[in-house]
């Protein structure tokens, strides 16, 4: 009898814990994607926090020194999205560097609250006419 009660209590606790853990896991998953992957399934990432990787598009960087507002475009050469970020551009933030921004899409604009520079691997854009190796880009940024 005692054993049965313990067993039932144990199973109940495990069940509740499992359900809680599943719910918490599901809601805190942060997908790491490139702009073209977002473009393919925007609905999948709606209202989700994502990590968007790509290259800082040359000529797109604007920084408002007074309000600490940074704007630039992130690209994987297939698709390009504008990014807004609150805060100063970090040291080593340059055109053509690989970056990962974390935040969410607001319409077509990505609102970032975290900006990481992938400075250890300097990405080299492919020679003219060569297609970009998307898989490699993703691996480098991850």
């Amino acid at each position, binding site marked *: 009898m005692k054993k049965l009660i313990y067993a039932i209590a144990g199973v109940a606790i495990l069940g509740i814990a499992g359900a*809680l*853990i599943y719910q918490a896991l599901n809601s805190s998953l*942060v*997908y790491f994607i490139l702009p073209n992957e977002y473009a393919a399934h925007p609905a999948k990432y709606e209202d989700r926090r994502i990590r968007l990787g790509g290259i800082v598009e040359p000529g797109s960087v604007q920084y408002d020194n007074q309000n600490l507002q940074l704007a630039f475009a992130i690209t994987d050469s297939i698709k390009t999205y504008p990014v807004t970020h*609150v805060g*100063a551009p970090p*040291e*080593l933030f340059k055109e053509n560097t690989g970056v990962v921004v974390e935040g969410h899409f607001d319409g077509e604009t990505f609102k970032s609250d975290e900006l990481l520079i992938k400075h250890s691997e300097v990405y080299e854009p492919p020679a003219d006419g060569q297609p970009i190796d998307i898989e490699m880009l*993703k691996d480098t940024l*991850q």
Partner: protein
Amino acid sequence: MDLSLGQLGMASLWLAFALAIYGIFAGILGALRRDARLQTSARFAAVAVFLAVTTAIAVMETALLTDDFSVRYVAEHSRIASPLWVKVVTLWSALEGSVLFWGWLLTGYGALLAITSPNNVLRPWALSIMQMVQLFFISVVTFIANPFIVMAVPPMDGPGANPLLQNHWMMAVHPVLLYLGYVGLTVPFAFAMAALITRRPGIEWMTQTRTWTLIGWGFLSAGIIAGGWWSYEVLGWGGYWAWDPVENVSFMPWLTATAFIHSVQVQERRRMLKSWNVMLIVLTFSLSILGTFLIRSGVVSSVHAFGDGPVGPFFLAFFIVVALAAFGLVAWRWDQVRDNAELDAAVSREGSFLAGNVLFLAMAFAVLLGTLFPLIVEALSGNKVTVGAPFFDKVSIPIWLLIFVLMGIGPLLPWRKAEEQSLRKNLMWLVGGALAAALIAFLFGIRRVYPLLTIALAGFNLVSLGLLITGAVVPRARLSGRNVLSVFRQYAFESKRRFGSMIVHFGVIVIALGVLGSGAYRVDQQIRIDYGQSVEFQGYELKALGAYTYPELSLLQSGTLTEQDVSHISLGANVEVWRNGKLLKVLNPRINRFLGRPEQPVPTPSVLYMPWHDIYLNIAGELNADSSSVTLRVVQSPLVTWIWIGGFIIVLGTAYALSPNRRRVKASQEARGSVQA
């Protein structure tokens, strides 16, 4: 031809490798044949292995300190202009050296055990198990990640240690503490295995290793807290814990080890939980190996993956072997470790320990799941994901709160079964303390649920500690008619383990409040300040004076110093922190550029430590010597200092529990004396 340091180091590793193999065979054979001479020989081998690895360590340090770039490890991780302390600790700043260092500590513990542990049936087996673990580490540094490989063409200078590591002296301390923790917990693991092999799953193995377990746990706790402080001082986001894989893998064995040091007490008192205890220590040891695999192999992406060398598969294989062998042994001896005693009542000391154990394990499982989940998702769907901090917070905070409830009640409950009357009286006090604390917090404007609950449970636990002490002291004082203070002093002195555990629990409460304050009420923003101007922040005035440079720019410009002479150059800002017209401190957040690795500048925060909250400044954005303003990340973290103080209290409590009891030592000496007489 002269013998190079590289060859000398290599030779000592080979010697250690051979001695370790001999030690294992001699130990096992000696145990099987009950051959005392072979057993003694195995003990000598343990000491000899330690000496051989010590030689390797001495050779590596010599190479580092004499800038011998013919040794590849030195060439890749050291630099002539680095300060002395950086050169010394470069030993463990990269993969090969850190495995060698870990192995060295293991052999040190092994030698100490061989010399000091009492002669009994367990000893030869435990020593052999220890030597098997040593053999793994020695093989890794000998064959897979050998730090002594010789360079054909030695470079003139090297790049120096990882900038993030040499940027703070904590790197001299934190890894050492962690390794001492892991290594310390290897000892009870080895004795548990020995107990299973020799069919003695009683309490001998745990009483013999009690000191080692506590030492290991204490070092592991200190190492984790020190790592948090390192991350606060170096990583620049004003936090100390990001649920990064590298943090998680140190936390998981800590959780199981914490469960273990509680549940062994149940076996010591009630002869219950035999199999549970063995499994907990197996879990603790294998999780520390699994963790090393996860962060050394690069399979999980981590903000600070300090090296993805070739050792990953070997640690994975070792983990699998350890887990299979150890759990297999438990299964094989199942009839021996099965419990025959039963829990008399859920509401009892052992009941609360057991519940706490389940909670610690649940948390360890959740952290493991969260750490491994990205791997599972990528294997199943190809999606690259990370599990965010919200998951870990959501799961661990409620579990911690439940643990705090048990931490308050458990020590007040008697073994076997609690009497309802005294239980009700105690509970009234505890709940009263909780309500009073929550009410005070509420009056101070705290409205959120988790902070209120945490503060309530802090009150609950403080009352519990008060009840524990008065419960022990007041009756004695009344009986003996002595004053309370002297009885208390005697109690604290005589019951060192019990009183030490109270100190540790108090430290845990202090940390909980620190985590609550810094987690729930931190203010984090970016501010731009023109030099000469000041900006208001949370009731403080931040006044940027101008650029901060190190070394003096003029010295570099005039050529008195060249880039070859300095380890790093810093550029930052001098910022005064004022409050109510009073200057509190001049902070100098800066960006350090280590000249051996200039491509990796390290923003280095500067912190004003205060008891109620810190003011934390870090350079955000680019900074030039001729800038006319600076952009700062400014973080105000309430109570964050309490975490470091709490960690210190925990270490103090552990040390107190471990300190030798003079009275008992004297008594045992007298007993021995009378036997001899």
